[in-house]
């Protein structure tokens, strides 16, 4: 029996990005190539949350930005709800942009300091010309209430709010157009622990209610654990392991992933395991000797569990 394969909300195929940095000290313009992202393949199904984790510089933010086409990929394709948006021009892209929105880490610089909150949340409606100005403000206020802010906040300015409240505004703005995909780039990293939990719960509620898919980028594994369905681990611009969340936490195969897990602070000293802090070379040498057609190729070790391999 053939089940129709559901179209993923977001699909990245062989996505790569190389930055060319000017090299100093020579007469002719010479540049060094920095491969920020290499050959990333990701599928974000409808109504699911995918965590993208890695250290600073692993390329996860760049990947997220490419998914939104805020950064142009050097090669590869981006599909949103089945449509290839990689090379669309600005005019064709604009209506499709409604389907994919973003929440950033720095909530303060994510909001225009000269606009009131209701103006900020209503702006997407304004840009896409939906409804009259009065209707736009009303929708904005409703959305703000949905994210936990009283509608009287509408006339306030960003600098009057706390970090958590600003992030709620950012989420309201991102979701007011009912996108299919939300790229959340470290939205909780700048928040206090208690506020983190509130925002995570908010995201979970909204995701369930709106049938939204979220690409959740973070370096904080404990946050990722409470939120995501699947996790992809990035290191040096490549995906090194990808599996269901609980699988990653229970049975990580790649030494880098294990290193990340070991680094999670544990509350009870008795529960602290023997931690391993490995260098890059050590990690390289410990990559499981799994057969694969190419070095660095992702190989399926179990259903839905992919790990980077080396040639035997």
């Amino acid at each position, binding site marked *: 029996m053939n089940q129709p394969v559901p179209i993923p909300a977001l699909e990245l195929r062989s996505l790569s990005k190389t930055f060319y940095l000017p090299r100093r000290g020579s007469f002719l313009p010479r540049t060094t190539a920095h491969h920020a992202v290499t050959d990333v393949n990701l599928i974000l199904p409808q109504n699911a949350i995918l965590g993208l984790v890695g250290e600073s510089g692993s390329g996860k933010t760049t990947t997220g930005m490419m998914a*939104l086409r*805020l950064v142009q990929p050097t090669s590869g394709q981006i599909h949103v709800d089945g449509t290839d948006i990689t090379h669309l021009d*600005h005019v064709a*892209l*604009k*209506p499709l*942009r*409604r389907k*994919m*929105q*973003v929440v*950033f880490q*720095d909530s303060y*610089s*994510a*909001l*225009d*300091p*000269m606009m*009131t909150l209701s103006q900020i949340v209503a*702006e*997407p409606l304004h*840009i*896409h010309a939906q409804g009259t100005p009065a209707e736009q403000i009303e929708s904005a206020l409703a959305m703000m209430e949905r994210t936990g802010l009283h509608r009287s906040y509408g*006339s*306030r*300015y960003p*600098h*009057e709010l706390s970090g958590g409240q600003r992030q709620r505004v*950012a989420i309201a*703005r*991102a979701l007011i*157009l009912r996108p299919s995909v939300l790229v959340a780039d470290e939205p909780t990293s700048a928040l206090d622990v208690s506020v983190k939990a509130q925002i995570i719960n908010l995201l979970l509620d909204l995701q369930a209610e709106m049938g939204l898919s979220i690409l959740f980028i973070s370096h904080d594994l404990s946050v990722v654990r409470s939120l995501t369905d699947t996790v992809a681990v990035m290191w040096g611009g490549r995906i090194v392991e990808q599996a269901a969340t609980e699988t990653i936490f229970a049975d990580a195969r790649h030494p880098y992933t294990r290193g990340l897990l070991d680094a999670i602070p544990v509350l009870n000293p008795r529960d602290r395991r023997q931690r391993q802090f490995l260098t890059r070379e050590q990690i390289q040498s410990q990559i499981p000797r799994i057969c694969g057609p190419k070095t660095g190729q992702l190989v399926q070790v179990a259903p839905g569990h992919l790990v980077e391999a080396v040639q035997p």
Partner: protein
Amino acid sequence: MTRSPLYFALRRFADNKAAVVCGVILLTIILMAIFAPLITQTGYEDQDFLTEALAFPSGAHLMGIDDLGRDFFARIVYGARVSLTIGLSAALFSVVIGIPLGAISGYYGGVADWFVMRLIELFSVVPPLLAAMLLGALTGGGFVTIVLIAALFGWVQVCLLVRAQVKAFREKEFVRAAQALGATPGYIIRRHLIPNSVSPIIVGFVLAIPLAMMLEASLSFLGIGVPPPTPSWGQMINVGMNFMYFYWHMAVFPTAALAITVLATTLFGDGLRDALDPTLKGR
């Protein structure tokens, strides 16, 4: 009670006593210029007092009488009109030219920025006064010409200020968020970047005024500015120099008027700048 960023700026400004005083002085001068006919007994070209030419200040004539028998106070007050009008108009034009150029070069960078910077370089190496004199001689002086010339040398400052602000804000996440929504660069510049550049724009505007006034006074001093009999402080200083030794009022009053106005405007502008954006201070 919601407080916009501008409210705090006003508070900071009010704390700066020197700037407030200068603002008051400036306002007084502006009011005097506007209501000139009400506070002067004669017009600026009425040569009613020829028999008492060059008289010193007295109760009847607060600033004395000039060499052509005109009430000097009237000449000074109407001279304020000339200086202020030219200063404000030129500053307005400077802003009109400077904002778009600054916004475009700040937002797009690359070739557009290179081009605008070369343009700025062009206007920076040519000594403004010499070029203004050449242009003045070319066009024969006159009101509109002087305003345009002053604007031509005043836009650079505004442009640089706006460019710096736009560059700084361009990388902010709220701009990226707008881009993610599909907003065009034009929309982003209009709706986000320029409103956030209000401080540099105001500062640039106010500080362009004394520059323009100085340029006009310089040109008039050299004889190629506002044509007589329209009173111009620069021109009056020129005339006053000839009478300086014996009739001090001919030189002192226009000089003082010019100095006070330029000083007050500049300090007021400095105060505005410090209030609107404390980080702009220093240069």
